[in-house]
């Protein structure tokens, strides 16, 4: 594994290796919540926040507990438990100390537990053998990339809200098609850097 600068990983995670546009991870909430820019932005923030910390936590759990004990194969289940517990904790803390933020994120926080992009990032960081700084950059970058994708999508959906769309394609249908087109656009970035 060649040493990649964390900064490159950070930007790659936003553009060339965007979780949604190149890996199609985290699609469920992406499709469900992307109808308004404001809520999309809130969810994006929440995902970025949780991603950053769970990536760090999972990095430590993996390298300091699972590897020494020789039970790396348990990473799927352990990562999921860590993510679920952490989301709960974050929910409590935000509820208590940042009521306005809690109100804005409200129902989205528990939703994050089941966002597969979060698990994806933790697993990629292991597969790609990132070190701590690289993982951190990857976590934050992926979160911002996810936010970029969902906010852009919300913008497009708000624009086409009043346009005539064939009945069968309304809602999720047209969203998936737009996602495909956006993904094509994001392909334009690929080749600039390689991080895997």
């Amino acid at each position, binding site marked *: 594994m060649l040493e990649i600068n964390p900064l490159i990983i950070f930007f790659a995670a936003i553009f060339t290796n965007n979780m949604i546009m190149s890996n199609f991870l985290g699609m469920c909430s992406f499709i469900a919540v992307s109808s308004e820019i404001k809520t999309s932005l809130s969810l994006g923030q929440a995902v970025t926040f949780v991603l950053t910390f769970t990536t760090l936590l999972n990095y430590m759990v993996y390298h300091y507990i699972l590897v020494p004990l020789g039970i790396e194969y*348990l990473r799927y289940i352990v990562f999921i438990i860590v993510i679920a517990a952490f989301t709960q904790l974050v929910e409590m803390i935000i509820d208590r100390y940042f009521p306005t933020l809690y109100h804005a994120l409200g129902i989205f926080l528990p939703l994050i537990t089941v966002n597969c992009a979060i698990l994806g990032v933790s697993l990629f960081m292991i597969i790609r053998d990132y070190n701590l700084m690289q993982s951190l950059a990857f976590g934050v970058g992926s979160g911002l990339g996810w936010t970029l994708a969902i906010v852009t999508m919300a913008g497009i959906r708000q624009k086409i809200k009043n346009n005539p769309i064939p009945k069968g394609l309304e809602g999720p249908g047209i969203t998936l098609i737009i996602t495909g087109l956006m993904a094509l656009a994001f392909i334009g970035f690929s080749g600039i850097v390689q991080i895997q």
Partner: protein
Amino acid sequence: MNDILTTVISISAISGTLALLLSIANRTIANYGDKKMLINNEKELIVDGGDTLLSSLIENEIFIPSACGGKGSCGYCKVKVLEGGGEVLPTELGYLTKEDQDGGVRLSCQCKVKEDISIEIPEELFNVKQYDYTVKQNNLVNSTIKHLVLDLPAGKEIDFKPGQYIQILTPTYKGNDEEVYRAYSLASPPSQKHTIELFIGLIPEGICTTYVHTLLKEGQKLTVVGPFGDFYYRESEREMVMVAIGTGMAPIMSILRHMHENKIHRKCTFFFSARNKQELYMMDKIAEFEKDMPNFKFIYSLTRATDEDQWEGDKVRVPDLIKKYLENGANKEAYMCGSPKMIDSAAEALVEIGMEEAFIYYDKFE
């Protein structure tokens, strides 16, 4: 073997640590300490901060109607919060009208008590209690309706107005894994404080009615919360029009028994309809009213009379029955119970003949 052991131990240890962390967080971060709750500007309670408003109230034996058990899916548990409820949550929005939101109405099962709070609830709810009844009798009165008679433990009494309803807490049973509350109108008169009577129709695959019809036996216990409702007998001089189908007879029966006992001789007509003669019930009681109450009249139709019924009378639905026998609705008041469809069409018929909407009282059995 060793692998299995390490796996089990490490997974348990990791989950255990996280669970411990979470419960510590729950005790510290999510613990808001004791909060003051002011009810109707007069009653003050100390409640655990962090709990929902609904559970804090229930803890203090103040029962708010709730059909979904606090899942935020029935919209029954509305409470007016004057101060300290925080902002309306997205989970509440679907159940609150614009006026509700402007007036500070909240779903008490979603709104958490995180600071001192001041709320307003209808006075009647202070009278609402939880009762542990014993089933005294559970008989069929026709092919689909059971007459349930419940007894309170010695020394206990329930106070209600004729027409009000209670909620039965349906326990879990084979085939139903959630506890649910369902509303049932009281058919007994308010003078009868120790024993209540209900009429419960069987809804195919209904959670509560299946329980009552097939599993609930005499001698068993049944938890009931009540009384609730703003459908009840009003004192006035107006002529009364009563309308019901099926189990909607229950609250009307309570009102009629109340009037019968107290020798209230207001002019009063009761419109009822059933499909056939077999579906009629409580006819002997109604005959008694007709005999003792000179101004009481019972008018009914059989919409799908069978040949055996040898029915020569009316075969129309209630709204047409009303139009046929009631000339004008002015200066009268109506009491109606039954399915939403029946009530909507009957109310339309009443308004058509001149009854004021404000004097049409009803409970929709939805």
